[in-house]
């Protein structure tokens, strides 16, 4: 019996090892490494889940490598989606506007077929956000699109040692009639300021205690992530649309010394210079048409271009189910339509987002030593006719358009998606608007 177990175990290791050891070279594509100029007839070599080399020198292909010809294709890094709701992250409930202790990871279904949409869209790293509808919806979670049975299979720990940020919001999103919820913008800001003052005091107690555990304050689930925010370990991802609300975030950032990533930014174009001056980064949503809620009536495709011009680092996000993960490249393409540079638009799909999540040492560009996360495209990344043909995560192929079962997730069809995906049911009272059709 034990012998059999041992044998099986040995088999596992052997299979794993052989699958991992042989280098694979992708030869002939136009490669956008992102950290440098595009490479014609490029060669990407990967092994053991990481990138061995990127260039166009045939000598870089190891003798034992499997060579895959990808002539006329385009290769770029796996895309980084800085704001999504795939998997059903939920977050805080409506008993309270401030829920720093609620973790998205405790709610997400790691086997959700929503994640298949991400792979079909070329997305390999995702910041799944809880909420929305709170001043603080809870802790976000950074996921890598590996095979998963349990959420731990997907967790992606960053350079700061955490695998998530903290979701905040202001404006009408978090104003509602519920216990303790703010009814005005000023009240929203004051509630958050009080909270951070409390967190500062808690942090001080910890610092004062030093190594003396008897002097440590009692553990406080709500305060702990906030202390991480104040020390710069955990990033605040801040939903904010209107220009006045954006300026409120800038004010909070200055007062408490944290550097949030600004999300959505329908009116970011109005205060692009102010955002640049504050040294903050922008994660924007790109939507076909304005409206649908008051915060978004001045939304424009030009947001990316205007922010770029002011020098603000711009990443894109899907906010899936608001926009579709399968069309993530389109967000950047429409921004190019409205004046953004191709270069910055490509960076916005990859390295800029990776930096926002403190994951740029591992993903976001094709560089030696980074994770072998990349996508193979049929053509120009910004063409509507281009398809993501393959999505690779840590050296293994997770999506292949030539496989009918994978392709079905791209097109949709009868019985392809289950009806219990989580991404459509996160928008609190806004969901009521969706449903009412009114």
């Amino acid at each position, binding site marked *: 019996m034990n012998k059999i177990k041992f044998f099986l175990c040995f088999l596992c290791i052997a299979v794993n090892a052989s699958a991992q050891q042989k280098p694979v070279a992708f030869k002939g594509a136009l490669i956008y490494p992102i950290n440098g100029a595009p490479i014609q007839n490029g060669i990407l070599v990967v092994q053991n889940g990481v990138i061995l080399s990127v260039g166009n020198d045939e000598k870089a292909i190891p003798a034992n490598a499997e060579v895959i010809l990808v002539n006329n294709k385009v290769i770029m890094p796996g895309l980084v989606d800085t704001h999504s709701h795939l998997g059903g992250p939920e977050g805080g409930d409506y008993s309270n506007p401030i829920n720093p202790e609620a973790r998205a990871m405790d709610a997400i279904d790691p086997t959700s077929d929503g994640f298949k949409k991400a792979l079909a869209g070329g997305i390999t790293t995702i910041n799944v956000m809880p909420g929305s509808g709170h001043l603080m919806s809870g802790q976000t979670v950074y996921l890598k699109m590996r095979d998963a049975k349990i959420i731990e299979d997907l967790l992606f720990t960053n350079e700061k040692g955490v695998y998530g940020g903290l979701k905040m919001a202001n404006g009408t999103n978090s104003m509602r009639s519920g216990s303790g919820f703010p009814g005005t913008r000023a009240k929203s800001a004051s509630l958050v300021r009080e909270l951070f003052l409390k967190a500062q005091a808690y942090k001080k107690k910890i610092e004062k205690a030093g190594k003396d555990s008897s002097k440590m304050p009692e553990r406080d689930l709500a305060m702990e992530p906030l202390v991480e925010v104040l020390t710069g370990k955990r990033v605040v991802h801040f939903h904010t649309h209107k220009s006045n609300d954006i300026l409120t975030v800038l004010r909070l950032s200055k007062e408490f010394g944290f550097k949030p990533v600004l999300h959505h930014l329908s009116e970011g174009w109005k205060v692009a210079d102010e955002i640049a001056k504050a040294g903050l980064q922008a994660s924007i949503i790109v939507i076909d048409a*304005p409206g649908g809620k008051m915060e978004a009536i001045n939304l424009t495709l030009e947001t990316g271009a205007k922010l770029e011009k002011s020098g603000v680092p711009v990443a894109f996000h899907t906010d899936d189910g608001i926009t579709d993960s399968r069309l993530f490249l389109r967000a950047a393409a429409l921004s190019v339509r409205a004046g953004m540079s191709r270069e910055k638009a490509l960076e916005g799909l990859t390295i800029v987002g990776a930096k926002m999540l403190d994951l740029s040492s591992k993903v976001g560009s094709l560089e030696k030593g980074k994770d072998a996360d990349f996508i193979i495209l049929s053509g120009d990344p910004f063409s509507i006719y281009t398809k993501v043909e393959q999505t690779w995560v840590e050296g293994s192929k997770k999506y292949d358009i030539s496989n009918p079962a994978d392709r079905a997730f791209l097109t949709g069809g009868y019985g392809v998606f289950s009806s219990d995906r989580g991404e459509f049911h996160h928008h609190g009272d806004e969901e009521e608007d969706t449903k009412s059709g009114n």
Partner: protein
Amino acid sequence: MKKSFLFLLVSIVSPIYLLAQIAIKAEIVYPVSAAPIKDGVVLVENGKIKAVGKATEISIPSNYKIYESKTVTPGLIDARTLIGMSGVLNIPVDQDQLEKSSPIQPELRAIDAYNPEEALVKVAREYGITTIHTGHGIGALVSGQTMVTKTKKGNTDEVVIKPFSMLAMTIGHSVSEKFSSPGTKAKQISMIRAELMKAQVYMKKMLDKDSTKHPTFDLKMDALSKLLKGEVKALITANKAVDIMNSIRLSKEFGFKLVLDGAAEAYRLIDEIKKANAEVILHATMARNEDDMLNMTRESASILTKAGISVSIESGYEGYVPKTRIVLFEAGLAAAYGLTFDEALKTITINPARLLGVDSRIGSLEVGKDADITLFDGDPFEYTTNVTTVLIDGVVVYDKIK
């Protein structure tokens, strides 16, 4: 004296000012009704198309203002939308598409609610959409009437082409969500049948030669009579196969003209749809595939077109962000998922023009048709291409350069 002078001034100046004579030169002109023309020219005079052809064959009169672009298409048509009825703000005061006081209200006219100044009408116009089929919404068995209108500014009576185009109906999950009754599919169908039977009786009485035997004029019955007489079509939003079949069964029983709207699962019922002579408007596939649209596929337009069904594409309805889809983008996606370029262009030009019964005026670039024209700086469907100029009835209503 003063009055007549003013009149003289207006009558001399306004036609020249409003209906300037325009020549459009483009690397490719897509007339839709004919093969694409390389290095083409379109001449516009007095609001109508005067000539379409090769630059070498058409001489441009010297007093014509010239617009140049890479590509030119007919003004685009959105086969079904709620813009102008369902406003950008998405708050009760700007939502006029669905009256929830009763599930069957065919008497509600779109022209009484449509707002030509609505922000989203401008958005559509600037994407080259020059005509829309808009009106009452989804979510009621009969929510009201629809209309066909140009997207130009002006009061509704001036811009509308067809004040009463179809009766907007819905069969499916969304109806039972919005009304306490009908609460089930079977009840939905029975309620529609009962109302149409009443209309049959009303109509028969109205045909009596003895006018004293006519029933009292009834707005609701009158609107339903128009459907039964074939003067207007039924626009039935039905996405699931079972709801599409219910629509076909109703159309057969009462002999009305059926347009299937949304039609997410139409690809499962190709033979039935063809047999019923039903027309099809497919919902924007960038919409969220939830509820009745769960089984939607991006390849619907391609599957149906290949099966010989004429497909029109609609922006449809959005209850949240974005408040509307854009048919230009949606047709592009259909082109990326199986339709040829020409077929995709037809889904937002001549196909909806025919379906709406306005193809004698719009839907292609042909001599004598309305000068509704859209100019682009590249392949119209490419993400990175911009609309540069839009004309409605020969007037430039959008010019990007300005």
